[in-house]
């Protein structure tokens, strides 16, 4: 019969199979579920004739295909020459490695034990920035538009440099839509700077982690170690009072959540503060992949998070208003929405890759102060495997290919993995400081499968709730 490419799931209310080849979830009866389990475990001989008949009925419906990928290879592998010569969609510039904050969770702020670079008083020379802009200008002919991002350290320490880069790039990219964005801690915002950003349509991403006690526990000044919340809120109030339209249209807040803290408290700022009503908030849990300090979850955080997840279901079913949900839960809900959007659309190809890696170098190219290229701003700059070239010599295509084909590290596992259609392991997650680690990837697989299964369970739970309510 061959082992069908499926994943089996059980909930308190039913039995399900996820059919990898059709990318669909089906409810099945308990005895079929058990029979499929035997089949998956290679115990076909134990199946009764009735069970074989039932399984064959599913096969007749086009389910339980055994087809698996033959080779793991990213679909763009043979096209990267084109993408990196004609379709680069933007560049993030590390205008400085310096920062006036020393956030506790920031890997650049950590001591000698941290594997990443450290904050340093090093800025990008304008000549390097120009070369970076020129580099992508002649390699973005087929890109509909380009994006230029300013990153640090704290990029507002280099405001004059940013002005020069914007001015230069406007000339260089005349005739092509260009969007600009800047990620900042917000402390150095002034009227002059905001006027400039507003005039030039530059989008700001301001870090704000929650109410004073939460924000100040992590985000502190480099010089004094003092809290920064009051300073940031002054800038927020300035934006609210004098630039309300800009605040609502071009500013987003990034809230990094420390899971050892109180979940509800983290969210309360964005619920309760008048100036922050209706602003765009992107939330994520502290990224500890390059940090010496790993996340610890408090029991309260877990309980409140689960309660919020329950509210999310209530919202999805129309029983509750969306604005009563925390931003972190909204973000999770969006993940479920994305899962649903692509549900049933994936196929198994002879040659394929799991998701995760972006179009290395073409999608989120990051250039450090010295002109070195990295796939994005979130990777470890000291890991040579992540340095995919530089502005003088161009791309190192071998490294690009290696990062793009991260699926090949665990080829045999991936070919037989039921989560292949929804997996999102990217090279950044399996950095072992000197290269890409098979062990790290294998370790991450379990988490990733759990994440995918949770999405599937969320999808099933919603159907079950609806079914039971309708009954």
């Amino acid at each position, binding site marked *: 019969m061959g082992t069908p490419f499926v994943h089996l799931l059980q909930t308190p209310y039913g039995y399900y199979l996820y059919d990898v080849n059709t990318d669909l979830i089906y409810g099945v009866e308990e005895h079929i579920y058990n029979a499929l389990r035997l089949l998956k475990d290679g115990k076909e001989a134990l199946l009764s004739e009735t069970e074989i008949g039932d399984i064959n009925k599913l096969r007749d419906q086009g389910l339980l295909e055994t087809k698996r990928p033959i080779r793991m290879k990213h679909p*763009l592998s043979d096209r990267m020459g084109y993408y990196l010569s004609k379709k680069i969609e933007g560049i993030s510039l590390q205008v400085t490695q310096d920062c006036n904050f020393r956030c506790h969770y920031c890997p650049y702020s950590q001591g000698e034990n941290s594997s990443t670079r450290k904050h340093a008083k090093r800025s990008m020379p304008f000549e390097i920035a120009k070369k970076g802009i020129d580099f992508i200008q002649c390699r973005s002919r087929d890109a*509909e538009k380009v994006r230029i991002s300013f990153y640090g350290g704290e990029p507002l320490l280099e405001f004059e440099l940013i002005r020069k880069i914007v001015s230069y790039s406007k000339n*260089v990219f005349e005739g*092509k*839509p*260009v969007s600009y964005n800047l990620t900042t801690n917000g402390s150095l915002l002034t009227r002059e700077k905001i006027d400039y950003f507003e005039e030039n349509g530059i989008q700001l991403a301001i870090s704000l982690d929650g109410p004073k006690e939460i924000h100040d526990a992590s985000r502190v000044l480099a010089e004094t170690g003092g809290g920064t919340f009051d300073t940031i809120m002054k800038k927020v109030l300035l934006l609210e009072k004098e630039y309300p339209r800009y605040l609502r249209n071009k500013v987003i807040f990034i809230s990094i959540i420390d899971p050892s803290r109180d979940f509800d408290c983290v969210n309360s700022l964005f619920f309760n503060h008048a100036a922050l009503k209706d602003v765009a908030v992107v939330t994520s849990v502290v990224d500890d992949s390059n940090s010496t300090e790993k996340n610890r979850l408090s029991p309260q955080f877990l309980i409140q998070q689960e309660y919020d997840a329950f509210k999310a279901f209530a919202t999805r079913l129309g029983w509750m208003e969306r604005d009563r949900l925390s931003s972190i839960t909204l973000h999770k809900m969006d993940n479920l929405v994305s899962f649903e959007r692509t549900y049933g659309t994936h196929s198994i190809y002879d040659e394929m890759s799991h998701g995760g890696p972006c*179009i290395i170098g073409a999608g989120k190219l990051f250039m450090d102060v010295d002109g070195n290229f990295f796939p994005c701003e979130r990777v470890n700059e000291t890991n040579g495997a992540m340095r995919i070239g530089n502005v003088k010599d161009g791309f190192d295509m071998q490294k690009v290919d290696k990062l793009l084909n991260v699926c090949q590290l665990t080829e045999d596992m991936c070919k037989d993995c039921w989560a292949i259609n929804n997996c999102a392991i990217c090279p950044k997650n399996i950095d072992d400081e000197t290269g890409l680690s098979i062990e790290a990837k294998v370790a991450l697989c379990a988490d990733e499968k759990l994440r995918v299964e949770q999405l599937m369970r969320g999808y099933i739970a919603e159907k079950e709730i609806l079914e039971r309510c309708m009954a």
Partner: protein
Amino acid sequence: MYGVGGERTAVYPYNMDFTPILRELLRRGLLDTDVKLISPPGWGVDGLDAGEAFGRPQLGITIESNLRSALDSVQNLIVAPFISTGTKEATVLIDNLLDGHIHLAISKGLNLIDFRKHRGMDSSEISRPHRIYAEERAKEDLRVDVPVVFISGVMEQVNKFDTLIAISNGLTQNGYKVCSIGARQYCAALGMHSFPSFMFEPIGEVTKIEYFKTFLVDVCKKEKPDVLAICIPGASVKFNNDFPNGYGIVNYLVSMSTTPDFSIVCTNSVEDDMSELDDMYLHRFGYSIDCLVMSNTRVFYNHLERELSFETIDYREVDQLLQKTKKPDSRIPHLNIFNEEHVEILTKQIVEKLGQTDGFVV
């Protein structure tokens, strides 16, 4: 005449779609080779040859990016049409830039030749009265009584317009009078008719078929060509569920208006089973494929991002691809429209095939 005899001309914004027009204007001597071709710097084609920049044969003219300085050394400015195939934002941006540049050109006393305003005779001269006639003449047995050549494409951006120009020239050089209907509005600049706009209006499909048939009959009556060449806009087949390509509806409507005596299909894939495509054309549109033109664009679908991208390749690579995938026993020849020998072969085949139709003198 767009700038010969001492007058110098600039073209802005020079883009891929204008390349076949430029080549033809140069060939006909309507434009001098000292023409300045200006593309916005953001397009990244500054310093490249005007043909090679878009994978076509060399034109020997280098693209520049500084329009302001160019305007000081020319007497005419040709405004080239530009419609982005992707975001509307890109088209709007260029339109806004153009407003400023046109203003500047006028203030400098330059002659403005706006190709965006070039339209074929469809909307003003023929198409409008046609609607009235078509209704009155719907029951007449209207037939296009000259041999017809169709040029269609399995996708967008497959060199259909280049093919129309090439075969029109080939047939004209062989002494035939060709009436061409191009898919682009500004093809009137080359003496062609543009595809009638009523084909995209919200009127009934049957009405469109009748209007189009009447339009063709009247064009032929008026011009008395030996051959009618029709370039069908859009794509003839759906690419996939994400990119249905308009389901080939326009191709179907045109095929119901008249039947071609010779059918050229432009494609960008060398891997497809062409007999399947031929069968599809026969059963869906009622005619077989006589020749396949392999375009210098490659289309690629990234299933991870659900994104379709087009890549322009050098026309010489098309020759290599055709050589690699040559099928000697295939009924349908595979040709490269930028290869002059292939254009000769194609012209010869059209003449031979049309020779089998009544009234066409070989």
